[in-house]
């Protein structure tokens, strides 16, 4: 096993994804410890070639082929498995995004490299790599050892690399097999827009599965009315159709940063926290005292949301009419 740290650079629509700087910052730190190089992998169709020069890596491995015009899992797997075999890196880092979730396990099975998923910490201790990972919806962390391998890294786990560019760009030939893939890219569909833009709100009353059913959304609407805010939701609530998809906060929903975020019956899974942890004031109402939402909340209560929410609405309305 070599000493390099390989990083897959995610990019979409001509822009490098935020995860790249976070992964490369960590890769440079780890490479300093292993005595290897931080290698950034840029898979592109030519139109994104210019992104290579701005990457904060020791070296950029630039692989050009028309199959890389969009993220296509099979094409990416071929390229990454090939690079892992050729360069024999100590570690391969991917972001724990859709792209990374799609690739990491497949690469692990194909290359026999161990995989640490939902990774939030990485250190080299002599011959072993120690990874810390979120498990059980973020309720627990697991510290594991591996000789090297793959880590899929959670957004925000590592600070972005300072300083940009200047990396040597090395053109690498595309792997065989890209001409007869078993999948084809059809279309990119932009998200629906809506009347309510939850990213533009000062106050969000956010409901999770604890709200129990769409007949109870009204309770949150009433509180939102008393505060002049808007109701948003966790993923299961949107998936169930209790609120529109455009109201979803989190990894696959919107990232929000309101002045006040009241989480009602939301457990605080990593994918939800990713979308709201930077809110100015977070209040969490959850009957489970161990729910991870309390790790990011400023104030919390384990009282039942069906009692607290109407009581809070009433208290606010009483205060308003007294004023």
């Amino acid at each position, binding site marked *: 096993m070599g000493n390099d740290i390989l990083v897959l650079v995610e990019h979409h629509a001509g822009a490098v994804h935020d995860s790249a700087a976070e992964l490369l910052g960590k890769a440079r730190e780890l490479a300093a410890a292993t005595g290897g190089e931080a290698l950034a992998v840029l898979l592109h169709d030519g139109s994104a070639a210019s992104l290579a020069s701005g990457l904060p890596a020791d070296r950029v491995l630039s692989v050009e082929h028309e199959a890389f015009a969009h993220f296509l899992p099979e094409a990416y797997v071929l390229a990454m498995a090939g690079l892992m075999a050729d360069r024999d890196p100590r570690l391969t880092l991917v972001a724990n995004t859709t792209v990374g979730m799609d690739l990491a396990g497949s690469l692990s099975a194909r290359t026999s490299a161990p*995989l640490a998923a939902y990774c939030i910490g990485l250190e080299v201790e002599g011959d072993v790599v120690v990874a810390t990972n979120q498990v059980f919806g973020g309720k627990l962390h697991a510290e594991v050892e591996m000789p090297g391998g793959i880590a899929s890294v959670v957004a925000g786990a590592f600070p972005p690399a300072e300083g940009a560019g200047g990396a040597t760009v090395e053109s690498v030939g595309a792997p065989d097999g890209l001409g007869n893939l078993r999948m084809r890219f059809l279309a990119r569909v932009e998200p629906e827009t809506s009347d309510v833009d939850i990213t533009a709100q000062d106050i969000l009353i956010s409901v999770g599965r604890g709200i129990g059913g769409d007949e109870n959304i009204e309770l949150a609407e009433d509180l939102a009315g008393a505060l002049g805010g808007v109701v948003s939701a966790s993923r299961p609530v949107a998936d169930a159709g209790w609120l529109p998809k455009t109201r979803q906060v989190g990894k696959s929903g919107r990232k929000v940063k309101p002045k006040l975020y009241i989480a009602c019956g939301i457990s605080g899974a990593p994918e939800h926290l990713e979308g709201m942890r930077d809110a100015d004031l977070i209040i969490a109402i959850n009957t489970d005292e161990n729910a991870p939402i309390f790790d990011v909340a400023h*104030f919390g209560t384990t009282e039942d949301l069906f009692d607290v929410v109407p009581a809070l609405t009433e208290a606010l309305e009483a205060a308003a009419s007294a004023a």
Partner: protein
Amino acid sequence: MHIVVPMKQTVDLVEELELNDDGTDVEREYLKFISNEWDEQALEEALLIKEASPGTTVTVVGLDEVDVDQTLFAALAKGADRAIKLGGDFEEGISSHQRASILAQVIEGLSADLILIGVQSPEDLDGQTGVLLAGTLDLPHVSVAIGVEPHEGGVKVSQEFGAGVVHEIAVDGPAVIGVQAARQAPRYVAISRIRQAMQAGGLEEQEAPEAAAAGSGLTIRRLFAPEAASQAEMLGGDADDVAARLAQIIADRGLVKA
């Protein structure tokens, strides 16, 4: 088209998760296990395809984990054609790599055209089973799918990215699709229907093949509860006390409606 849906029993996260004596796993003996919610989404998507495409059959496969019978019979009651329970000793829990290794061997004998599986489970320390399975079987895969529909002899998959961007990808089967969400919420099935399915029997039981010896390649040092980043101030008292405090906190920050 023959669709195989692997289903897993996983820890109910609403439970308090106590650690075992050496701190390397949760204390499984006392925990409540439920069907992995993403596998339920995968099953729903399979049933939607079946309803829209005559001639489609759906087979669910589960390891003999706590209460898996309930999950498999519920799948039959909802419309799955076959349910296979793989016997073995899984009480200690098994890694995703081992699970993928077992499933790969079973699925090779099932002539599947499509494998729909939950995008993840809460226990995927060493990665998600679906993509591990695809890598093991050298099958094409698309993960984080929010729609799978028959298309030109294969399927069209809607793959979801951040902020609601979706890519549509055509995939030739057999393929493994990691389902994030079905096109509609998983259907409800009455307990009485599950009981009927149980009475009718129809669970095929076979021994699970040995998982590949390599395992996950990870050595767990310890599990621990994360230290809170910003410890929340917990408000005591009953709901009215809490509401009064919260109203005050909100007012103090100048956040009440003008």
